[in-house]
């Protein structure tokens, strides 16, 4: 049922085991519930535990302590592994490490083929997935000749062809130019809105995090903030003390407030910021 969380962690703890047996704790009691259809961004400095958390969402990593449920399934239940991987797809930073075939449509078909989907249905799924990411025209192209943004969209199509309910993306735009970033973000947002796919986006780009419905901030293996982006980003000093930033529009409004100008800090986008400033500058005193 739609009331059941798609992802839930309870007191999730994770330690890497090293040769010397010293085990630094990467996740320290993380409890979190993500419901179907949410678009959640996760921020945190390098080493804050956000990628480790993401890898628990489709059982690439298993908890050292606590529990993870994916659509109600315990991630430690080996019999459920395939179901879990079907439910939650992952997209990583480097598109070149995720593409396996020499033709785009064959790459997208790789997942469903491995699931043993009948070939007529594979055709249908591949076509639908490529259409969903706007890459239909490139179905017969060689992936290595595509741009970074296009490759990432093919990687997303490959995940979509598995018909997941949730996609987890770990810094999918870090290696892309501005157009590539926009292509990927627009694609993610559309899938979330139109197909109601749950999205978990891990990113270092504050302007990308600002586009989510919910923003989680990780620090030293803990969740330190979890709220709407416009609320989280009001805590400018707090975020900076964690080595993070705020979107440029918020940073400007913050500077103005420091200079004694009464403006709200809630404008995350260029348009919202322009709106706030217009009001400020055009009211007759």
């Amino acid at each position: 049922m739609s009331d059941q969380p798609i992802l839930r962690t309870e007191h999730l703890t994770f330690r890497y085991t090293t040769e010397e047996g010293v085990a630094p704790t990467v996740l320290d009691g993380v409890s979190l519930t993500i419901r179907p259809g949410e678009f959640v961004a996760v921020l945190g400095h390098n080493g804050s535990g956000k990628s480790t958390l993401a890898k628990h969402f489709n059982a690439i990593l298993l908890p050292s302590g606590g529990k993870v449920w994916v659509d109600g399934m315990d991630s430690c239940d080996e019999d459920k592994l395939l179901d879990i991987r079907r439910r939650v797809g992952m997209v990583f930073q480097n598109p070149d490490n995720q593409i396996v075939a020499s033709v785009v449509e064959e790459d997208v078909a790789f997942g469903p083929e491995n699931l043993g989907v009948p070939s007529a249905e594979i055709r249908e799924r591949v076509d639908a997935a490529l259409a969903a990411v706007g890459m239909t025209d490139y179905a017969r192209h060689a992936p290595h000749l595509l741009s970074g943004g296009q490759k990432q969209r093919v990687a997303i199509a490959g995940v979509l062809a598995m018909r997941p309910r949730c996609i987890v993306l770990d810094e999918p735009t870090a290696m892309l130019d501005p157009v590539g970033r926009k292509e990927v973000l627009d694609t993610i947002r559309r899938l979330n809105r139109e197909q109601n796919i749950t999205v978990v986006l891990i990113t270092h780009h504050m302007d990308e995090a600002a586009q989510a419905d919910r923003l989680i901030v990780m620090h030293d293996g803990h969740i330190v903030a979890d709220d709407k982006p416009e609320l989280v980003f009001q805590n400018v000093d707090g975020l900076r003390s964690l080595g993070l930033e705020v979107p440029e529009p918020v940073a400007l409004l913050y500077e103005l407030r420091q200079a004694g100008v009464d403006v709200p800090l809630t404008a995350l986008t260029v348009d919202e910021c322009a709106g706030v400033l217009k009001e400020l500058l055009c009211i007759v005193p």
Partner: protein
Amino acid sequence: MGAIIETKQLTHTYSQGTPFEHTALDCVDFSASRGEYLAVIGRTGSGKSTLIQHLNGLLKPTAGQVLFDGADIWESKDRTRQVRCQVGLVFQYPEYQLFEETVYQDIAFGPKNMGLDRDEVDRRVKQSARFVGLEPGVLEKSPFDLSGGQKRRVAIAGVIAMEPQVLVLDEPTAGLDPSGAARILDNIRTYHQEKNACIILVSHSMEEVAREADRLVVIHRGAIPFSGTPERVFTHGEELEAMGLGVPAMTRVFARLRSMGVDLPASVYTIPQAREAVLAALHRREEH
């Protein structure tokens, strides 16, 4: 100020004479002066990587010239070798290129290959470690035990240790969190100022180049359609947008306000400038 490095009518064609022939650079005139902080912006595939690989002789021009200090870098084998030490190139994700057993040895690799004596190598390793903010204790560690941001600083230190007069960095902040990115940019600025070195920064972040660079060079389809101060380059908003680049968020905020009829300067591209412009406008309003 004379150019320390320049290209004259530089053309580079990949796979010439095959069906895959592709001209990545077409008669490009590029120059950078001693002590200048320059940023190169362009889409993936625009030719910017091809250009920077010519600057220290990793690629050889199909036609045209690359000059260092006024002389062709391909003049002789010795000259090419010399230039490779004078023009340091830091690739994207340089942390994947670390290979030595200790951080010290990794940073020492370049200067050792230059044939410097042990004391000089030692001085340079310590100095470049300081430049990138690595604690002395880190030097004896294995580079593979460090965090991502630290590894990247080790890789940059390895290039800085050759004390190049021109330091070229291809997206040095990609994949780093904001404070990690800020630290690397600080390190680069310190090197720039203390050594009066020429910096060539390749970046996809318009906000970053707006803050850091004195001059921007735009590369599009193997040519340089415009270059100049950030202020001048960012007035070409629509063209940049069409090239897949865009302008910084602050420039967009101010363009939006101007289109709504608010009287503000067009030359704003950083947060401090935006702050000043808004405060000045408020002040003017109060006087009326």
